[in-house]
């Protein structure tokens, strides 16, 4: 499923809404999640999962082609943990 298919499903469920409003709604949700993480916040969606930010310490990396050592700066990366309900649903018969 891709973004446009998700939008279409929501639009089909809600015939009283304009397609462009459905697009704005779906885009707003994903945009808010990214915005929150860019501020270092966590987004917890019970049953679905939680988005958070993890810190990766600075380290010495290696250029795989030349074998040269290169310093890699400290950075923050997005992280997602699947919620219990969804994890369980994935394994139901």
């Amino acid at each position, binding site marked *: *499923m*891709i*973004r446009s298919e*998700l939008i279409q*499903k*929501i639009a089909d*469920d*809600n015939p009283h*809404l304009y397609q462009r*409003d459905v697009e*704005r*709604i*779906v885009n*707003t*949700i*994903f945009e*808010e*999640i*990214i915005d*929150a*993480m*860019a*501020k*270092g*916040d*966590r*987004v*917890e*969606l*019970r*049953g*679905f*999962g939680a988005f958070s*930010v993890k*810190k990766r310490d600075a380290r010495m990396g290696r250029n795989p082609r030349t074998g040269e050592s290169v310093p890699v700066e*400290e*950075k*923050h*990366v*997005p992280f*997602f943990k*699947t919620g219990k309900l*969804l*994890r369980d*649903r*994935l*394994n*139901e018969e």
Partner: protein
Amino acid sequence: MSKTLTRMDLSESVFREVGLSRNESAQLVESVLSHMSDALVAGETVKISSFGTFSVRSKSARVGRNPKTGDEAPIPARRVMTFRPSHLMKDRVADGNKS
């Protein structure tokens, strides 16, 4: 100080963005999550451009160990979901959290 956003915060953003009631905004947030969950449970990959990709992988059974007691415990074959953030998400998270 970092905080935790919930469904309520997402519905509030939807409410402010489009002229719908708070109640309907909350239902739409729920509907987005449940359509995504249903697709994943059906084994589909959910690919949201400029956000990221959720996919389902099958793991085979293995013998695990209770890290506290060291006891062996069988872990049955199961399906797990993974999320791969888009480059845009990675860049915005890295840039926004620079010290």
